């Protein structure tokens, strides 16, 4: 065999150095958690902390084994390389195996894994413990947004008059356990708020439990993680943890309806347009909710997001667009997913039913969305999946936005 040429030696050494640097950089990067709203290493609640406490030692063990094996291979390849001076007909000692050693290194990993197994089982048990007095929320995935139903009166039913139906954002009181039940209206989705817990698939026809709890008020972002078709990438959600008193006020406001006509003339004609074009799929309590209970909805999977209290949310369109504070006035499709409340399209006083700060509403994105939804978020509206392009005139869009702005 030909001897290694100098060029090859240098190339090999450079590649080796690059890979070592890369691994070092990646380990460093694993600890850089700022500006990474979906980071799994920033636990914000008891469940995610529980997982974190298990994951860290497991990673540590894996790291030790990694260093051990890599070190051994490097050492061996260096120590036992054939040197140019070696006699080609001289052979190393012919070792066929050592049974004791082999049994040893069969048992050793088994013991390490048994240790890991104990921690794993304990964590699984803890994560599945039922919490008393948890708030019951049913989370339903639908192409490509999330619907939340709160069992406010605790009767085990999510559709009573005292219950809440909302979309896109889940509002919870900080420090209180939420018992989520995931399900789906069409295909399999997965509900994942990395800051609060691991994910749970939302399977049609199945109801799966997931415990969530946020320790402090804040915004916890999430992303659908089970491939669910065309706009899977654009199916996001967030959990907005607020103080207990804000939560009470939010619930009280959510229970109200919007039967009364808006006073503003433009908004009023917007309502007429809404009833003519949007009310087939969307619901506004007090306007068409009674009708929608029996109506044939032209969607494959269920109704479109409930808009009754649209302006109490900070994001819309599957949580990819800010409802307040345009990020980039020139590009309506950009959303800034920062982790602090202010930048996540914070609805301000509107959250609990206060006035909507019209000056801060992200009209650029909202209008662009009404103009042609599929341009921002691909969908199959013709197949009953997603919001169609309704061919609205600019005047209609203007009136509709004016009406939507009244939905606090």
């Amino acid at each position, binding site marked *: 065999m030909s001897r290694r040429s100098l060029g090859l030696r240098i190339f090999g050494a450079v590649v080796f150095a690059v890979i070592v640097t890369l691994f070092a950089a990646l380990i460093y990067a694993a600890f850089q958690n700022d500006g990474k709203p979906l980071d799994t290493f920033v636990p914000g609640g008891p469940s995610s902390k529980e997982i974190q406490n298990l994951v860290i030692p497991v990673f540590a063990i894996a790291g030790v084994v990694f260093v051990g094996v890599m070190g051994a291979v490097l050492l061996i390849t260096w120590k036992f390389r054939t040197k140019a001076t070696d006699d080609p007909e001289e052979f190393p000692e*012919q*070792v*066929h195996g050592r049974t004791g050693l082999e049994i040893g290194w069969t048992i050793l990993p088994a013991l390490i894994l048994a240790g890991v197994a104990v921690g*794993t089982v304990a964590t699984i048990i803890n994560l599945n413990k039922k919490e008393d007095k948890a708030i019951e929320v049913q989370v339903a995935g639908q192409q490509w947004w999330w619907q939340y139903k709160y069992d406010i009166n605790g009767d085990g039913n999510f559709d009573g008059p005292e219950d809440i139906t909302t979309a896109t954002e889940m509002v919870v009181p900080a420090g209180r356990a939420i018992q989520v039940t995931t399900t789906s209206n*069409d295909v399999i989705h997965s509900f*994942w708020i990395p800051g609060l817990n691991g994910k749970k698939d939302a399977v049609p026809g199945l109801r799966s439990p997931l415990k969530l709890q946020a320790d402090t008020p804040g915004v916890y972002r999430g992303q659908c993680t089970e491939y669910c078709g065309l706009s899977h990438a654009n199916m996001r959600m967030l959990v907005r943890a607020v103080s207990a008193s804000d939560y009470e006020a939010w619930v009280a406001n959510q229970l109200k309806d919007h039967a009364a006509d808006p006073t503003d003339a433009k908004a009023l004609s917007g309502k007429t347009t809404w009833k003519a074009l949007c009310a087939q799929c969307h619901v506004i309590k007090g306007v068409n909710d009674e009708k929608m209970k029996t109506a044939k909805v032209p969607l494959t999977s269920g109704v479109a997001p409930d808009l009754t209290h649209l302006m109490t949310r900070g994001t819309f369109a599957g949580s990819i667009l800010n409802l307040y504070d345009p990020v980039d006035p020139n590009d309506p499709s*950009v959303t800034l997913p920062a982790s602090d409340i202010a930048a996540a399209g914070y609805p301000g006083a509107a959250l609990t039913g206060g006035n909507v700060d019209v000056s801060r509403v992200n009209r650029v994105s909202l209008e662009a969305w009404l103009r042609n939804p599929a341009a921002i978020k691909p969908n199959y509206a013709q197949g009953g999946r997603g919001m169609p392009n309704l061919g609205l005139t600019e005047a209609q869009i203007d009136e509709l936005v004016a009406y939507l702005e009244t939905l606090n």
Partner: protein
Amino acid sequence: MAIIEALPTDQLALPGAVTSDYKPAGVFTRPKAGGTGWKSWLTTVDHKKIGIMYGATALVFLLIGGFEAILIRVQLWSPRGTLLSANAYNQVFTMHGTTMVFLVVMPIGAAFANYLMPLQIGARDVAYPRINAYSYWMYLFGGIFLNTSWLLGGGADGGWFNYAPNNGILYSPSHGIDFWNLGLIITGIASLAGAVNLIVTVLNMRAPGMTLMRMPIFTWMTLVTQFLLLFAIPVLTVAQVLLMMDRTFHANFFNVAKGANPLLWEHLFWIFGHPEVYLMILPAFGLVSDILPTFARKPIFGYPFIVFSGVAIGFMGWGVWAHHMFVSGIGPISVTAFSLTTMFIAVPTGVKILNWTATMWGGKLRFTSPMLFSIGLVTMFTIGGLSGVTHSVAPADTQQTDTYYIVAHFHYVLFGGAFFGFIGGFYYYWPKVFGYMLNEKLGKTNFWLMLLGFNLTFAPMHILGLQGMSRRIYTYDAGYGFDLWNKVATIGAFTLASSVFLFIFNIFYSRSKAKSLPPVGADPWDARTIEWMIPSPVPEYNYDPIPTITRVDDFWYRKYGETKDGKLVRIAATEDVVQQRSDGKHIHLPSPSYWPIVASFGMPIVAYGLIFNLWLCLVGGIIVVGALFGWVLEPPDDPDAAHEDHDPAAHGSDDGTVVVNAGEVAEAGDVAAEKEPETVG
């Protein structure tokens, strides 16, 4: 590609030998044996030619699947990439996964199994040579059928795992998923036929003295792999038949409105899918277990442990499937159970790694290209194995699953593991198969470039996943912190692509240089297993005579003797113990046949019929059934290719010229076709 040197027909034919009263009826003659032109490849039943065709086809599909990977990486170069639409991206990632798993990695394993396994056990050919050809053509036509979806309305868009109900007609109305489903049923038939064939070959056709515990480890791993296929493929077929019933005939297997349970698909798919993972990696493990001892110049450390850990992986692989479903809502008890089984499958895998390391310990390591790729496998697979252990920890997996962390994990396993092993195997066996060495300098450059590209592409994905980047998303936004590492990964993907092209360049470069170099000889690496004692390229008849095996690494111990204290002494010059090319006149080989290619050609026509027009099914069905009857009715031999010890009477009815067993047991025909004339005469 026609490198296998076949013997000219006129050497084999003995004029006047054919006095058989057998009158072939028109089409029922067999093609002449021993041809070398392109036609001989279409009708060949030679396991070596079929192995080469498997490998060549898989490399072409590798380029297709690799191109799809590059599209993915370019799309994800920056936030809101615009190269691909959401729809196109979903098709591309689905077809990338499907192509790489079913049309690249599995077939490369089949290529090595076909070419090498009969050589390693000292057999003439596989048990059913025609079924072997049939397997290959089914794979080829299935793969082509699958890829014609691009021209006929778009590829599948459901992901390679293709979960219900997203794979239903309601959510994926295009024909892409039909192509996926039917194409994989076709390649599944190929795998199943291959599995039966190769298992029978290993169990029944070993050379004298080749006991199971003397078999080379690659052959052992092939045996385990084929058993996994034998039992895994039918489970996938059930899932696919149910899906076809749903999509084509409106059944209710995945119709939630009628009470279907979408988890049925997940269970069936992963009961197939996890053994599938092991059957992709085990052939590469086998290759490495044969390469490392050769270049460490000492025996594999703990042969029985390596073998039994492979068998253990094969068994345990059936009890871990639901770790793909930890978050699907299967309940905490199932989660715990599958979490534990998954952890402990790491034990036999770890044993292998440690044994390989121990094989190198104390050796005299020669860093040839095959050796470098094998060490690459040992290290890169270790990373994949360790990340695998982290998601056997179910609570951790709930954070990791369906993120890029998983993408990183299985690429370290399937690329860093299986593919590095395969490329190492290519470098190692190239002289045996084609009679010329691949250039070593290019080979080593190839290794370092591939190692670099591979790590640049997939190592950052660990961090991307842990920091929240979801799988199968066609786009991501700025502000999530995904930008930097996606760019690194894309650069890595191009590096990786260039290393694959370097490999292909090396093939042609070395081939053109080979003419001016001395012939490689039977044993260019000073290797251990018996396939190295026959001439390179391997003669059509393989061995003459068939060796009698006395121990593991039999060929090595024909060259060297071992003293009691482990010292090695040469007892014979290599030239004295290798076999010389003979004229092979007295060796009876199975004749080529037209029917495998015809029978498999009917299958995609049936599949097109199921998609577009049921009448086409009839056409395809007639071709398939007609070809099967032609198959079982054709004479056992090409009447013109008789041999000196060939009793013509054997062609009479006595030899069971026509063993009619249509349908699934058509394989019976092959034994009749191959039965040694002297046993009947």
